[in-house]
């Protein structure tokens, strides 16, 4: 296909784009009405947002925002966005605008939920960062595999295995050993995935599902049969938060970004390193070539299979390490199926983030926020049943995957490569 056909002139929208624009515009308008009716007329007093913690060096004020006033403003903005989306669209910024719009809705919702009370925004965001950790690790694991042409549905299993190993090894040999052990077990599962998909050309989805079921069964069995009777083996040290000097003193940003535990910092490093490596190094160029067009890579002497093995195993190490967050990085003990679908949400974050580490962490933060919201709102006295709040992260996933983000073009040829 020549260029003239795949490209279309700037400013001209294809029917598919227009259709998506219309759907999005309707979503904006529905949200505008919803915000107006539910929050605008549903709020009576004001909500106080707390922006710093009692112990922080620099204290910033806690703004008090009238719920109904905010809702009217947000509703108007949404209505404007909807009209603009219908008529002209936002082009390449569509997803950004959507994120801002949804953020406004969330803000208005918070003001309504915290009506007449005070609510710690800093606590909410801090928790969101933490909850984004396993999702980001899952997403980066997924994109390392997918950039090289392997779909990794087994991330959920790798996270769970990492959590389990982290708990046991952490309890016996200490936290550092627990993290290394978790990564290695994730890597081991990835070897299985790679052998099945690259060597034996098993359907990639099936291979991943096999891993998920295998890990869920195995860890659940050992938990009930073994850990319950030996509680000492399920009592891992928890990585505490530590502040980074100077940076952690910045109001709001400091406590949210720079007063966290090693897993959150690890997430920053992971995203930075993989972004650079994928797009600026020899390894990255080869990885992407193998994913996009394996035969082209093969004909210039790149070892396609070796690259696939390498990347899938790295993906496994990342997912395994991320899994340790659930135990060593959070509660210190392992529970059955404690990942609760975070691996799959990670996959959604990868797609939402368009197979780019920075996109992945941004998407993971959206999910993390939804997750953290349900925890924090449980404390407030809202009329929404807690079961509904618990659905929030999954609901966001469905909305995102169901196409609000538009069609993304995966970076890869996922068919098993057959060397002739």
């Amino acid at each position, binding site marked *: 296909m020549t260029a003239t056909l795949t490209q279309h002139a700037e400013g001209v929208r294809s029917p*598919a784009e227009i259709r998506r624009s219309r759907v999005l515009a309707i979503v904006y308008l529905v949200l505008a009405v919803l915000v107006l009716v539910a929050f605008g007329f549903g709020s009576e007093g004001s909500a106080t947002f707390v922006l710093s913690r009692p112990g922080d060096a620099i204290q910033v004020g806690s703004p008090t925002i009238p719920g109904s006033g905010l809702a009217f403003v947000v509703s108007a903005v949404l209505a404007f966005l909807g009209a603009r989306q219908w008529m002209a669209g936002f082009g390449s910024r569509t997803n950004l605008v959507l994120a801002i719009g949804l953020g406004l809705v969330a803000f208005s919702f918070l003001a309504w939920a915290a009506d007449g009370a005070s609510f710690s925004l800093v606590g909410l965001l801090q928790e969101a960062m933490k909850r984004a950790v396993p999702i980001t690790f899952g997403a980066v694991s997924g994109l390392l595999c997918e950039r090289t042409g392997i779909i990794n549905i087994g991330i959920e299993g790798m996270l769970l295995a990492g959590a389990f190993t982290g708990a046991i090894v952490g309890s016996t040999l200490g936290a550092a050993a627990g993290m290394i052990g978790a990564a290695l077990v994730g890597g081991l599962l990835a070897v299985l995935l790679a052998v099945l998909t690259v060597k034996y050309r098993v359907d990639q989805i099936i291979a991943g599902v096999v891993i998920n079921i295998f890990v869920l069964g195995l860890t659940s069995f050992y938990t009930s049969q073994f850990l319950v009777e030996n509680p000492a083996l399920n009592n891992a040290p928890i990585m505490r938060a530590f502040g980074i000097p100077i940076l952690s003193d910045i109001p709001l940003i400091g406590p949210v970004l720079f007063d966290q535990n090693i897993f959150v910092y690890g997430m920053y490093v992971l995203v930075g390193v993989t972004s650079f490596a994928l797009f600026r190094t*020899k390894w990255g160029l080869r990885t992407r070539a193998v994913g996009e067009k394996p035969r082209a890579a093969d004909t210039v002497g790149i070892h396609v299979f070796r690259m696939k093995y390498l990347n899938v195993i790295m993906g496994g190490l990342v997912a395994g390490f991320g899994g340790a967050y659930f135990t060593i990085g959070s509660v210190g003990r392992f529970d059955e199926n404690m990942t609760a679908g975070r691996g799959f949400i990670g996959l959604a974050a990868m797609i939402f983030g368009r197979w780019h580490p920075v996109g992945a962490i941004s998407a993971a933060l959206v999910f993390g926020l939804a997750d953290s919201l349900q925890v924090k709102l449980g404390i407030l006295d809202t009329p929404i049943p807690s079961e509904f709040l618990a659905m929030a992260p999954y609901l966001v996933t469905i909305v995102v995957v169901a196409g609000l983000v538009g069609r993304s073009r995966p970076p890869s040829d996922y068919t098993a490569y057959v060397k002739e």
Partner: protein
Amino acid sequence: MKLELKGITKRFPGVVANDHVDLEIETGEILCLLGENGAGKSTLMNILYGLYSADEGEILIDGEVQHFAGPGDAIAAGIGMVHQHFMLVPVFTVAENVVLGVEPTTTGGVLDINEAREDVRQISNQYNLAVDPDAVIEDLPVGIQQRVEIIKVLFRDAEILVFDEPTAVLTPQEVDEFFKIIDKLKDDGKGIIFITHKLKEVLEVADRIAVLRRGAVVGSADPATATESGLAEMMVGRPVDLKVDKSEADPKDVVLSVKNLTVTNLFGGTAVDDVSFEVRRNEIVGIAGVQGNGQTELVEALTGLREIAAGTVIIKGEDHTNSTPRQIHDSGVAHVPEDRQRSGLVLGFSLTENFVLDSYYQKPFSDGIKMDWKRSRSEAERLIEEFDVRTPSSEIPASNLSGGNQQKVIVAREFGRQVDLVIASQPTRGIDVGSIEFIHERIIEERDAGAAVLIVSTELDEVMALSDRILVMFDGKVVAETKPSETTNTELGLYMAGAS
């Protein structure tokens, strides 16, 4: 540098793809390897390039035996290959594609993309191969992509360059341009192996000609004395009639009428842009054009496989805009799709199953609930006989047949019933000369029996030979309409490249 292939033999299950092939080439000459599709040319070159390993025989460079475990070894030995289907990563830039596998780096494996750009510029200046190192491959026309492939090979310091069917995707003007490039390469002391099945090209550029048939070298020829018909006979193994015999067309009433048709492609761009034309009974209309100019989408829209964004399609006076494929089929339309393996056949199905694929739900093959396999089989045997499909039985899977015979199965299924409109896309792509002759004859028979025929082909010679009227598509539009008697390949080539 002197390259020799000695006694190369390669067997695949059931076939001997290469049978004790001997070839030699030196730098500074152009060797043409001529052979039909399936003669074993590509297999031979893949062995040379380290993609396959030979069962017997050896490769020598300057008298030394080589062992190529993979393309990396062949590249290191000074052999470069431009594949028929370009081996470029579509989303990478020119520079990224050129250096892939031998990337210039600074410390720690960090890509030195400036160095890569500079290398591309230097090679493109040296050999007059103008390309922008920062252009993304998928935005480039095929002719330029081919230059990128050549730069890629030169960047690896190849001494012997292998071109596998390099002209198949080019317009006549691009072909001329390409011949200038390989002449320049020859003058600079490179050796060229040029694989093709096009006789004219061979006579134009070759220093020496080797002809391959059924895996074996059956002869060589000197381009100064060889003739097209002589080469064709050597290639096919019997005298071939290179011309298509047909009488003057006598167009009658309109069968297909397309008005202002607009179709979008997968990515939302406009693939077919406001196209209007008619096809009448007893006439063959040929659509010429370089691949990717909207022909695929046009045919898919006409046969109900792709949504029509605007415009109308009228078949025999009835509006069939966005009708289902079955409605269109039932109105008497035969469709020979562009890709026989992907959309023409179910490869894992038997021939019988493939033959009734379009009519299994009707009497006499089914009573509405269960299939009448006996009836289906007798129909299959009738079609195999009538359309000369070479197969041991009607019950073997379609995947076992050769390309030419697979194509005959499709033609038999589509032409085996009374049709008023034939839409055939690339009807003879990649098949042997015997099957091409046969299919061309059948298409003309359909015309003479009163069908309206629409042919889409990227082979200019085929369009010229078959058509009564020619339309040229470029960038989604019909840019020219003419008749074979009133035009030349050169003129059509200009239209195909967008000149108007």
